[in-house]
C-alpha cells in the first residue's frame, strides 16, 4: 500500500482526536473507550507502517512545514520531518503502542469507569510521542517532549490516591524538568544565534570557528535534556519510582517509547554534536557509567518492576554509550559504527523490554504482588507468560541468536574499536562488559525467582492471563527473538551516520564471529546466567571470611539505598535546602516587610490621634457651628421626604415639566 506522505499528519492527530472523544463521551461507554483506543491504534499503525517503509526504502527525507507564529525576526514552524531515523521510531512507537492498547483492554478491566481517564491519557501520550518523533524543529520537539512528560506524570499518578504514586508522579515531573531546562537553554542558544530551530536549516549550517562554542554548548544542553528524559545519571532517580503507575504504562512509556526520546534526541542532534567531539565523550561516559550504576542496583532489588526499571536505565546507558562513541569516532575517522549500534539496540530493547514489562504485568495480574520473594514456580501455571519472558530474558542477556545479542555485541565492538582514539573508551568498554555480565545475572535471577523453583505465594491458584494479554506477549516475542536478524538484511544500510558500508550478511557474520570480543561477551552472559542459576535455583551460598562479609553487607546496603542519591537530591536538596530557603523568605515577607508596613501604619495612626486632639480642641468649635446650620436646613428638607411613591412621582413630573418649559423657551428664544 502506497500512501501520500501528507497522511503522516494523521498519525499524531488520530490519537489526539481519540483522546478528546474519550474525555468527552467516555463515561457513556461501558468499557471506558478501550475499543475506540484499540481501533484508533490500529488505524494509526496502518498509516504509520507504510509511511515508515516508504521512507526506509527511499533516499528522500519528507519535509513539510507551516509557520506557527512569528515573533520579531524569529519565525517558528510546525512541521513534519520524516527521515529514516523518524521512520525507525515510528515503527517502534506505533507497533508497541498498538499491542499495549490491546493488552490494556484486559489488564485494566478491573478498573471500572476510571479506565476512561487511562485511555484518554494514554492516547494523548501516543499523540505527543508521535508528534515528537515526526517533528521538524527543536521547538516542536520540546513542546511534545513536555507533553509526553505530562502524560507520564498523569499516568504514573493514575492511582493518585496512593501517596506513593502521587509522590512518584511529582518526582518524575520535577526531575525530568531539570533536564528540560537544559534543553530549553540549548534551544534559546540555537534560536538566538542561528535564527532558526529547523533541523534541515541547522544541520546544513556552515559555521565559522568563532561560533563553534555555541554549537558545543547547545549540544551539551540538549544532551542535558536527554539525561532527564532517558533517566541517566544523575537524573535517573525518578524512573524506578515511576513503576507506581500501571504496568502497561511502565511498558509503553517507561521502557519502550518515552524514555527513548532522549536517545532519539541525541541521535537527531548528531550533526550538531559531532562538531564538538569532547561533548560526545561526555555522552559516552554518562551512558557507560549509568549502565553500570543501574545494573548494580538491579542486582539486589526484590520488586519485579523495579528490577526491570533499573535494567531499562542500564540499557539506555548502553545506547548513549553507543551514540557517544559513534559520534566521537565519526568526528575523527568518519566511521560511526556506534551510532548504528546504539539505535539498533534502541529498537531491539524496545521490543524485548516491552515484552518483559507486559510479562511482569501478566504475573502481577495473576499473583497480585510485585515482590519476587512471593512468586516462584509460576512456570506451570503460566506457560505462555513464562516462555515469552524467557525469550525476552535470553534476548536482553545477549545470547545468540536472540535480538539483544546482535545489538549489544555491535555496541561493545564499536566501543573497543574506537578505544585507540581515547583511552577513556577502554574503561567504558570494560564497564560495558561488566554490565553484560550483570544483566544476564539479574535478569535470570528475576526469571528463576518468578517462574522456577517452588511456589512461595500463599493463597489461591494463579492462572494464565486472558488472550488479549497473551497474544501481545506472543507477538512481541517474535521481534524479541528475531529483530536482531535485521542486521543481516541491511539494518546498517538504513540507519547510519555518514556513509553506509553495504556489507553482505555473510561478511557481517564473519566479522562478528571472528572477533574474540564476541566470545568474551557471550561467555560473560552465560556466566551471569549460570551464577543466577547456582544461587537462586541450587541455593548455592559462599561463606565469606569476616572482613569480606562485612564489606559485602555494606555494599548490599549501599545498593539497596540506591547509593544514597535519592536521599541527597530529594530529602536533602529539595527538602532541606529549597524548602529552607522558601521558609526563610516567607519569614522575611511576614516579619520584615509586613512588619515595616504595619509599623508605618501604627505610626500614622498615632500621628492621627495627636491631630485628632488638636482638631477637637480648636477646629471642631467652628465646624459644630456649621453643622448646626446644616441640621436646621436638613430638618426643613425632611418634610419633603415623605416615603410615598406618589409624592416622589409628582416631584419627578414637576421636574420634567420644568425641564420641558426650559427647553421650549430656549427653542423659542
Amino acid at each position, binding site marked *: 500500500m502506497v500512501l501520500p506522505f501528507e497522511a503522516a499528519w494523521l498519525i499524531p492527530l488520530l490519537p489526539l482526536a481519540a483522546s478528546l472523544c474519550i474525555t468527552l463521551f467516555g463515561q457513556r461507554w461501558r468499557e471506558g473507550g478501550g475499543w475506540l483506543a484499540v481501533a484508533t491504534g490500529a488505524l494509526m499503525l496502518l498509516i504509520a507502517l507504510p509511511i515508515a517503509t516508504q521512507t526506509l526504502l527511499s533516499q528522500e527525507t519528507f519535509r513539510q512545514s507551516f509557520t506557527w507564529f512569528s*515573533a520579531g525576526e524569529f519565525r517558528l514552524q510546525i512541521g513534519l520531518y520524516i527521515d529514516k531515523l523518524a521512520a525507525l521510531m515510528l515503527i517502534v512507537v506505533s507497533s508497541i503502542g498498538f499491542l499495549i492498547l490491546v493488552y490494556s483492554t484486559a489488564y485494566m478491566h478491573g478498573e471500572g469507569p476510571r479506565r476512561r481517564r487511562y485511555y484518554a491519557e494514554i492516547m494523548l501520550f501516543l499523540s505527543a510521542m508521535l508528534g515528537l518523533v515526526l517533528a521538524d524543529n527543536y521547538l516542536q520537539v520540546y513542546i511534545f517532549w513536555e507533553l509526553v512528560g505530562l502524560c507520564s506524570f498523569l499516568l504514573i499518578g493514575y492511582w493518585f490516591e496512593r501517596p506513593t504514586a502521587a509522590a512518584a508522579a511529582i518526582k518524575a515531573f520535577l526531575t525530568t524538568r531539570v533536564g528540560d531546562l537544559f534543553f530549553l537553554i540549548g534551544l534559546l542558544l540555537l534560536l538566538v544565534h542561528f535564527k532558526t530551530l529547523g533541523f534541515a536549516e541547522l544541520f546544513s549550517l556552515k559555521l565559522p570557528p568563532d561560533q563553534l562554542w555555541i554549537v558545543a554548548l547547545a549540544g551539551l544542553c540538549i544532551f542535558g535534556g536527554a539525561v532527564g528524559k532517558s533517566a541517566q545519571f544523575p537524573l535517573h532517580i525518578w524512573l524506578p519510582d515511576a513503576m507506581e503507575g500501571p504496568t502497561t504504562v511502565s511498558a509503553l512509556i517507561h521502557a519502550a517509547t518515552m524514555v527513548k526520546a532522549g536517545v532519539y534526541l541525541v541521535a537527531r542532534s548528531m550533526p550538531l554534536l559531532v562538531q564538538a567531539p569532547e561533548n560526545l565523550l561526555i555522552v559516552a561516559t554518562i551512558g557507560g557509567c549509568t549502565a553500570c550504576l543501574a545494573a548494580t542496583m538491579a542486582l539486589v532489588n526484590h520488586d519485579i518492576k523495579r528490577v526491570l526499571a533499573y535494567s531499562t536505565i542500564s540499557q539506555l546507558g548502553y545506547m548513549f554509550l553507543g551514540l557517544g562513541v559513534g559520534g566521537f569516532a565519526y568526528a575523527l575517522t568518519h566511521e560511526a559504527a556506534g551510532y548504528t549500534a546504539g539505535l539498533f539496540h534502541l529498537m531491539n530493547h524496545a521490543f524485548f523490554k516491552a515484552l518483559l514489562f507486559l510479562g511482569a504485568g501478566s504475573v502481577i495480574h495473576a499473583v497480585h504482588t510485585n515482590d519476587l520473594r512471593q512468586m516462584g514456580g509460576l512456570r506451570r501455571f503460566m506457560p505462555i507468560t513464562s516462555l515469552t519472558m524467557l525469550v525476552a530474558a535470553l534476548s536482553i542477556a545477549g545470547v545468540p541468536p536472540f535480538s539483544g545479542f546482535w545489538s549489544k555485541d555491535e555496541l561493545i565492538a564499536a566501543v573497543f574499536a574506537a578505544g585507540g582514539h581515547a583511552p577513556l573508551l577502554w574503561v567504558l568498554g570494560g564497564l560495558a562488559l561488566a554490565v553484560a555480565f550483570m544483566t544476564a545475572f539479574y535478569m535470570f535471577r528475576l526469571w528463576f525467582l518468578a517462574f522456577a523453583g517452588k511456589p512461595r505465594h500463599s493463597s489461591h491458584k494463579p492462572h494464565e492471563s486472558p488472550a488479549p494479554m497473551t497474544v501481545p506477549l506472543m507477538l512481541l516475542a517474535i521481534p524479541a527473538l528475531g529483530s536482531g536478524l535485521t542486521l543481516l538484511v541491511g539494518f546498517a544500510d538504513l540507519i547510519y551516520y555518514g556513509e553506509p558500508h553495504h556489507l553482505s550478511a555473510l561478511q557481517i557474520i564473519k566479522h562478528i564471529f571472528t572477533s574474540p570480543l564476541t566470545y568474551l561477551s557471550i561467555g560473560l552472559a552465560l556466566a551471569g546466567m549460570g551464577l543466577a542459576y547456582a544461587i537462586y535455583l541450587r541455593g548455592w551460598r559462599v561463606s565469606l571470611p569476616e572482613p569480606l562479609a562485612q564489606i559485602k553487607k555494606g555494599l548490599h546496603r549501599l545498593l539497596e539505598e540506591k547509593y544514597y542519591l535519592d536521599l541527597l537530591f530529594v530529602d536533602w536538596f529539595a527538602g532541606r535546602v529549597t524548602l529552607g530557603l522558601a521558609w526563610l523568605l*516567607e519569614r522575611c515577607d511576614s516579619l520584615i516587610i509586613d512588619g515595616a508596613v504595619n509599623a508605618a501604619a501604627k505610626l500614622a495612626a498615632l500621628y492621627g490621634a495627636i491631630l485628632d486632639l488638636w482638631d477637637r480642641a480648636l477646629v471642631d468649635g467652628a465646624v459644630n457651628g456649621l453643622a448646626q446650620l446644616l441640621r436646621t436646613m436638613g430638618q426643613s428638607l425632611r418634610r419633603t421626604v415623605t416615603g410615598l411613591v406618589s409624592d416622589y412621582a409628582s416631584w419627578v413630573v414637576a421636574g420634567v415639566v420644568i425641564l420641558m418649559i426650559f427647553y421650549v423657551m430656549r427653542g423659542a428664544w
Partner: protein
Amino acid sequence: MISLSLLVLLGGMVLIGLLRDERLVKYMGMLASAIVLGLALYIWLGSDWRLPGWQYLEAYPWIPALGIQYKVGLDGISMPMYVLTALLTFLACVFSWEIKARVKEYFALFLLLEIAILGVFVAIDLFLFYVFWEVVLVPMYLIINLWGGPRKEYAAIKFFLYTFLASLIMLVGIIALYLAGGAKTFDLTELAALKDVLNPTLQIWIFAALFVGFVVKMPQVPVHTWLPDAHVEAPTAGSVLLAGVLLKMGAYGIIRVSMPLLPAGFEFFQPILIFIGVLSIIYGAFVCLAQQDLKRLVAYSSISHMGAVLLGIALGSELGIVGAVYMMFAHGLISPLLFMIVGAIQHGVGTREIRLLGGVALKMPKAGFIITAGALASAGLPGMVQFIAEFLIFLETYRLLGLLVLLPLLTVIITAGYYLWALRRAIFGELSPAVAAGKDVQAYEFWPMLTLIILIVFFGVWPAPLLADIAGAVQSLLTMTTGHGLP
C-alpha cells in the same frame, strides 16, 4: 462603541438599583456584562489591529480650560486587556450565583468596577486615566470589606492605603508632567511628542513618581504584601478581577504612559526594572513553596508571574513587550481560573488549608481536573497560553542580557515544584475527613472555569493572530518612543 459599553454598564447599575427580586438582579448583572462582552468581541474581531493608530477613537472636550478631554480608544496592547476585563467580569458574575448578602450592592459594584477598569485601558487622556484609576479603588475596597473573609477590614484598609498612597505619588508625577510639558494637554499622543522638550533629569523624577503608582499595583517585591492579604480575604469573584485585570493596570501603565512619554526616565530605570522583575520572579516563587493556604499560594504566584511581565517590559524591545503583553493576557486567564477553583474547593469542602485537604481528586473529580489543569498552565506547560509568553520573554532576555536568563529559567522548576507539591498534599493522596464530606464543583462554577481552560489551550496552540495584533501596536509604540525602528 466603547462609550456605548460603558453606558450599558451604567444602565445596568441603575436597573439593578431599581430591581427588587434578587434573582433578577443577578440576571441583570450577567446580562449587562454579557452585552459588554459581546461588544468587546465585536470590537476585537471587527477591526485590523495590525494597523498603526487608535481604533474606535472617541474624543470630546471635558474641561477645556485645562485641556482635559474624554478621549478613549484602543490599540493592540489595550485591546486584549479590554476583552479580558469584559470576559472576566461576565464570568465573575456567573460565578457569584450563590451570593446571598447585599446582592444589589454586590452586582452594582462589580459593574462599577468593570466601568473603571475598562476606563483605565481605553483612556488616552492622562487625566481621564487617573480618574478611572482611582475609581477602581472604591468598588474593590468595598467588595473586600463587605463580602470578605474573617480579616476583611485589615485586608481592605491595607489594600486601600497601599495603592492610594502610591497613586497619590503618581498624581504628583502626572501634574509635574502636565506642567513641565507646558502644552496644556493631557492627551497621551500629544504628551509623547513633547518627550524631547522634557529635561532628562526631570523625566527621571517623573518616571520614578509614576513607577511608584504602577509597581504597587502590579505588585512587585518589596511593595507586594497587600496582595496576599487582599486575595485571601476577598470573595472569589473579587480575586478573579483583582488578579485577572487589576494587577495588569500597573504593567499597562508602564507600557502606555511611562515608556513613550519618558524615554530618558525609562532608560535610566531600565536596570532597576530588570532587577525588580527578576527578584520578584524568584522571591515570589520561593515564598509560594512555604504557603499553607491554597489561595495565598496562588496570590504569591501572581507576584512571580507579574515579575516576568515586568522583566519583559524592562527589556524595552519589541519582542520583550509583546511577550509581556501576552504574559499579561495569559496570567489574566490562568490566575482567575486558579482563584475560581480554589474558591470552589473552599465552597465544596469548607477549607483551603493544604493540611486539611487531601484526596480532593477522588471525591471531587471535576475539581481535581480543573486545579491540575490550572496548575500546569501556570507552570508554563507547552500547549497552554503561558508557555508562549514565557518563551518569548526568556528568548528576548537571553538575546539582550545573555546568561542572566538562567535566574528566571531556574525558577521554572520551582514554579512546577510548588504547584505539584501542593497538588500532592491537597488534591492527591488519601481522602481527608474534611474532603470526605465535601461536594464537587457546581454547574455555575464549572462552566466559567471550563471556558477559561478552553481559552488557555486555544491561545497556547494558536497564538499567531493575537501575537500579530499585539506586535503591531508595540511597533508603533516603539517608533513613537525612539523615533526610529527597533534596537
